[in-house]
């Protein structure tokens, strides 16, 4: 990485430090560092006994841009598209320098890769659908997530639900993607532009699931499409999704809804082949899978599908 971890006070704030906002005067006590990215560091803090996540950076413009995105997403009705934003302020640290920070909802979750390792690949279907649902909401609101990758996903427990975090790359549709990671970027693979459009995110969705099975990633080498196809076809757990993922890589899907439709069909068919092994089924399992799935989608939870997959 080119961003070297310089000894800045913002990425090594000692536990117990009180961060007091210059404008709004709220006070946050630092508990631990949750992570570090290209722009700033995120800390678990408490404010009047409530746990919050605080992102702080010396790049005040980058912080401001992220806050603008979070505010815009907050205005979108319906499903929650990003972490809730609580406060935006500046902090004058002991060294006399001013850092910008914002405070958001603390999302305690598990990384996708670890979750799948612990709980099995049956969760791929539900997470894929959840992700496509969230992206659909984001896209309909005129945005593209941009820097979609395993690092920017968390699995919320009980019931397991994938959540998008870090809106650093979130870009208005039609503009140039703000921030991306090469492995997930269709521009890097020369399979499309860096214009913010829904198909940009859908490409990255496929790369997320490829990355799950190639933890060390791999580099560009000759023609990209045959290479990615080869890698994809070697993953048994993704076999049912081959055709669908291939379409997403080629940019065939123009909306998340189109891809979702195919995924629902695949998941349903999988269920049929599985359930045909059962000789007798209780009545509640006799509903056609597609019906069952669409009901569960309407209720906003893919938990039902997960249950079906584990049958």
């Amino acid at each position, binding site marked *: 990485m080119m961003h070297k971890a310089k000894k800045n006070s913002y990425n090594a704030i000692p536990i117990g430090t009180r961060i007091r906002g210059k404008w709004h005067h709220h006070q946050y006590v630092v508990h631990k560092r949750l992570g570090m990215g290209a722009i700033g560091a995120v800390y678990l803090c408490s404010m009047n006994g409530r746990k919050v996540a605080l992102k702080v950076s010396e790049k005040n*413009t980058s912080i401001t*841009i992220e*806050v603008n995105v979070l505010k815009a997403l907050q205005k979108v009705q319906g499903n929650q598209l990003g972490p809730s934003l609580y406060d935006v302020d500046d902090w004058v640290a002991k060294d006399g320098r001013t850092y910008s920070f914002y405070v958001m909802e603390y999302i305690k979750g598990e990384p996708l890769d670890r979750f799948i390792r612990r709980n099995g690949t049956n969760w791929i279907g539900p997470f894929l659908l959840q992700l496509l649902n969230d992206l659909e909401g984001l896209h309909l609101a005129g945005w593209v997530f941009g820097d979609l990758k395993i690092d920017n996903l968390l699995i919320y427990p009980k019931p397991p639900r994938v959540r998008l975090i870090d809106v650093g790359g979130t870009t208005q549709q039609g503009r*140039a993607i703000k921030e991306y990671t090469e492995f997930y970027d269709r521009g890097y693979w020369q399979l499309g532009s860096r214009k913010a459009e829904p198909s940009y995110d859908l490409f990255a969705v496929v790369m997320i699931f490829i990355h799950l099975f190639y933890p060390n990633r791999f580099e560009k080498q000759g023609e990209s499409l045959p290479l990615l196809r080869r890698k994809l076809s070697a993953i048994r757990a993704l076999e049912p999704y081959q055709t669908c993922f291939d379409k997403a890589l080629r940019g065939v899907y123009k909306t998340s809804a189109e891809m979702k439709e195919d995924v629902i069909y695949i998941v349903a068919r999988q269920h049929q082949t599985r359930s045909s092994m059962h000789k007798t089924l209780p009545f509640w399992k006799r509903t056609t899978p597609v019906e069952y799935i669409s009901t569960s989608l309407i209720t906003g939870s893919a938990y039902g599908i997960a249950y079906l997959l584990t049958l």
Partner: protein
Amino acid sequence: MEKGTLRQILLITDGCSNRGGDPVPVAALAYEQGITVNVIGIMEQHESEETSGLQEVENIAASGGGISQLVYPASLSQTVQMVTKQAMTQTIQGFVNKELEAILGKEESLESVDPEKRGEIMEVVEDMGETCKLEVLLLIDTSASMYHKLATVKEALIDLSISLNARVGENEFSMYQFPGKRSDIESIMKWSPNLDGMYDTFPKLASGGITPTGPALQEAIYQFGKQNLVRSMKRSDAQSEEEFL
């Protein structure tokens, strides 16, 4: 300066200038004429930022109002874009800060307005960065030590073209190498909206051991000026473009 257009020189080099005078004052000249000078210094694998002897890189960018970054070849692609985009934002923010000073008084900048207003201002800065016209003159060091790095540089520039062409605003690129075969600087590609034109003309061979960074920068400024002259003559009777500031 014609408003609504950002002009940048992106200098990619792996060593210090050793012919034709100090490039640092030349960069200051460029900046005074509204051209930002960004510099990327490519290090060898065994070098570090301290040992590379590439301090000149930082000085050129500082005088040129731009950004400098030392980098290993592997992260060149990402760096080239980051530097170009950050420099754009920095330039636009510079304009905005001047405006703020005019309204709010001396010493006032983006940092001294509250986060809510800052958010609104940054939205404008982002809009400008996305929609403004951008002219980038790429100045590539092709002295002997660059030989192994030229393929990587070419790839990074193609990548830059992909990124910038995703913007709403127009782009113009041109490319020069230094030293040239016969002179200090030689054209690789004329002004064009993308970098496709360099596929055939991008140098595969390095030429000689000299690094005439100063004269090359001087020539780059001249080329910018010449291009503007040609353009202003072409549209002498056309309506002037909408100004964004």
